[in-house]
């Protein structure tokens, strides 16, 4: 989730913070400040990377007013931040001995913080949760069979294509395997007389490279880690996925490296400069802003990345409670409130995200947002990143490894072997 901006500059800070966290993060829960009469009370500090801007603040304040009416003795102090700086805020506050009571964090973040004793176990069990959520949605909040986080919203990544461009080329359905993906991409690629790329057959660069590679890897049957927590992302299936990306750029030339990048001001698919892409559900909002007629005229379609099995990348935001909260019952009440249907629907609507609760699949919002609808219909094939305590250190190295393969500096096997060795060292370091 965290953008890559300033990431390299912040590595020394991350190292220091991790060390500090290791020394201070452990310890049992603090004495509760909650009443014995079943009522919860106290001042709860909430750190949120969502509900951004004035709109987001308005939405959250409205929800918190409802929370206050249900729990009049609980005051909530909100600290708004962004995903780009969430890790620094979380780790500094924990290492500094002033953790937030309720912390919203991303998929893949639970094991790193839970392993250091920074999170409190929630009073939930997996079996009950799977009645309200898809099992795949519940899993990122679990570490060592204990529930530490409940999902509020999902960020999903899958295939997005231009129906009109496909129709013009006589292609009737999106690709159902890697071979078709390459063939269609080659057919749909357009270059002008000078050889300059004017339309990429498939855009694999607008999305974060790691988050493009991972769904391809999962679709090819690969896994990030073995069940005992060792790197598995240099398996033949994973290498095959990176080989596909490399072939698209270097062999088929269906997209040129540097053609676009995540966060670019214009999305090639919206401009007709790409026929399909691996994209985020929020890209539908970008298309609506940049070329609203495409959405109105139903020219945008979605497809699961597929080869050995269908796969979709599942990120998201989970609500957690600090292990050192002075008011754990009040904090847990706030987590339950933020993850209930009303509050999470409001959060998803404000951000254009995918609700985590099964019950929201029939909501007007999901019915009106085709990307969210597609994602919810395919949650059985959703895969999440992370899974090991060292994930936040490891994930930042994926980009360089993938780029090295795309630029031909290393073979996919070499790039992923080196990455796996680095990851293994980080895991061993603990």
């Amino acid at each position, binding site marked *: *989730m*965290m*953008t890559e*901006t300033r990431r390299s*500059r*912040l590595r*020394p*800070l991350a190292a*220091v*913070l991790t060390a*500090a966290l290791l020394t201070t993060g452990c310890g049992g829960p603090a004495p509760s400040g909650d009443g014995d009469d079943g009522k919860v009370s106290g001042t709860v*500090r909430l750190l949120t*990377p969502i509900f*951004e*801007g*004035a709109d987001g603040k308005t939405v959250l304040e409205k929800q918190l007013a409802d929370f206050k009416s249900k729990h009049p003795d609980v005051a909530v*102090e909100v*600290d*708004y*931040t*962004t*995903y*780009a*700086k969430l890790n*620094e*805020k979380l780790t*500094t*506050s924990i*290492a*500094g*001995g*002033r953790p937030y009571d309720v912390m919203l964090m991303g998929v893949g973040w639970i094991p790193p913080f839970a392993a250091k004793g920074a999170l409190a176990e929630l009073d939930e069990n997996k079996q009950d949760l799977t009645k309200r959520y898809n099992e795949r949605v519940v899993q990122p909040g679990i570490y060592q069979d204990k529930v530490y986080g409940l999902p509020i919203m999902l*960020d999903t990544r899958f295939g997005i294509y231009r129906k009109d461009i496909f129709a013009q080329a006589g292609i009737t359905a999106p690709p159902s395997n890697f071979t078709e993906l390459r063939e269609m991409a080659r057919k749909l690629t357009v270059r002008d007389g000078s050889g300059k790329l004017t339309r990429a057959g498939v855009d694999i660069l607008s999305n974060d490279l790691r988050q493009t590679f991972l769904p391809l890897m999962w679709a090819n049957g690969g896994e990030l880690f073995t069940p005992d927590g060792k790197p598995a992302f240099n398996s033949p299936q994973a290498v095959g996925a990176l080989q596909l990306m490399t072939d698209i750029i270097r062999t088929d030339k269906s997209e040129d490296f540097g053609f676009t990048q995540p*966060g670019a*001001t*214009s*999305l*090639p698919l*919206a*401009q007709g*400069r790409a026929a399909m892409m691996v994209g*985020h559900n*929020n*890209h539908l*909002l*970008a298309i609506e*802003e*940049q*070329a609203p007629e495409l959405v109105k005229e139903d020219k945008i379609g979605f497809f699961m990345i597929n080869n050995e099995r269908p796969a979709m990348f599942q990120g998201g935001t989970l609500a957690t409670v600090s292990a050192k909260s002075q008011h754990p019952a009040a904090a847990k009440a706030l987590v339950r409130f933020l993850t209930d249907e009303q509050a999470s629907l409001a959060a998803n609507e404000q951000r254009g995200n995918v609700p985590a609760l099964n019950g929201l699949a029939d909501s007007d919002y999901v019915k009106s947002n085709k990307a969210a609808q597609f994602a919810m219909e395919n949650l059985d094939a959703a895969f999440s990143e992370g899974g090991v305590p060292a994930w936040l250190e490891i994930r930042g190295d994926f980009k360089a490894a993938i780029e090295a393969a795309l630029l031909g500096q290393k073979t996919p096997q070499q790039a992923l072997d080196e990455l796996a060795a680095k990851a293994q060292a980080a895991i061993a370091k603990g």
Partner: protein
Amino acid sequence: MKPRLAPRLALHLMLGGGALVMVVPFFWMILTSLKSRADIAAYPPNLLPDEWVWSNYQAALDYAPFGTYFRNSLFIAIGHTVINLMLATMAGYALARVPFRGRTVVFMAVLAMMMIPTYTKIVPQYLIAKGMPFFGGNDYLGRGGYGWLDSWWVLIVPGALTPFAIFLFRQFYLSLPRELEEAARIDGMGEFGIFARVMTPLVKPAIATVALVTFEGSWNNFLWPLLVTTRDDLRVIQVGLAAFQLAERTEWSYLMAGSTLATVPMIVLFLFAQRYFVQGFATAGIK
């Protein structure tokens, strides 16, 4: 063409080219701040907006409490600048002109401080601020409360005195002739008078340089204010600008409008101090 005109013309062309390279991103920022979302996304990009969307500025200001952020940044930047000028001039003067045992060691320590990466100091500084005795509910041992966190103290005191400023002032004071100091002393002037009334007025380029660099560093400070504050009424302008960069998309028009507004004080300050600023860096041999 006169023979001496050619080199002058070449020089001006080169400098003009350099100036253009520097100015283009600013113009691009201003033009982008006046474009609609669709216009920003246009490919190939348009230089001028199809429609001049002046309302982006109001929308950016409505997106977050920028008035508060602006005021806070200004207050902190002025506070840092004043404190740095006052203390660093004295420290630099002492290191340059006042002989005392261990002066070289102290100077080396100042230089060493310049070499410590900022990010490695953040957690220790955070802990020091949190453990400040008698503040924020803390007892005399700094326990029980949150010290300076979430207060003006934590935004102003750490980083108010910079080793770079001490170093720069020392270099300037070293370059002044000893005769001035001795003449003042013979005339009966005290040591503080010599420092304040004779020597310091002669290091105006250093004062302008330190003032500008301190103000600029403080104005652009992002991570520290973000980490040590949790309340909107203590947040600064750079933290406000970061709010436009969402996880999956960026509000470019608002970000550029906010950045344009955030740049104005720096440009105004530079216009006033540029003569001394250039002279200061040239004399100190720093770039």
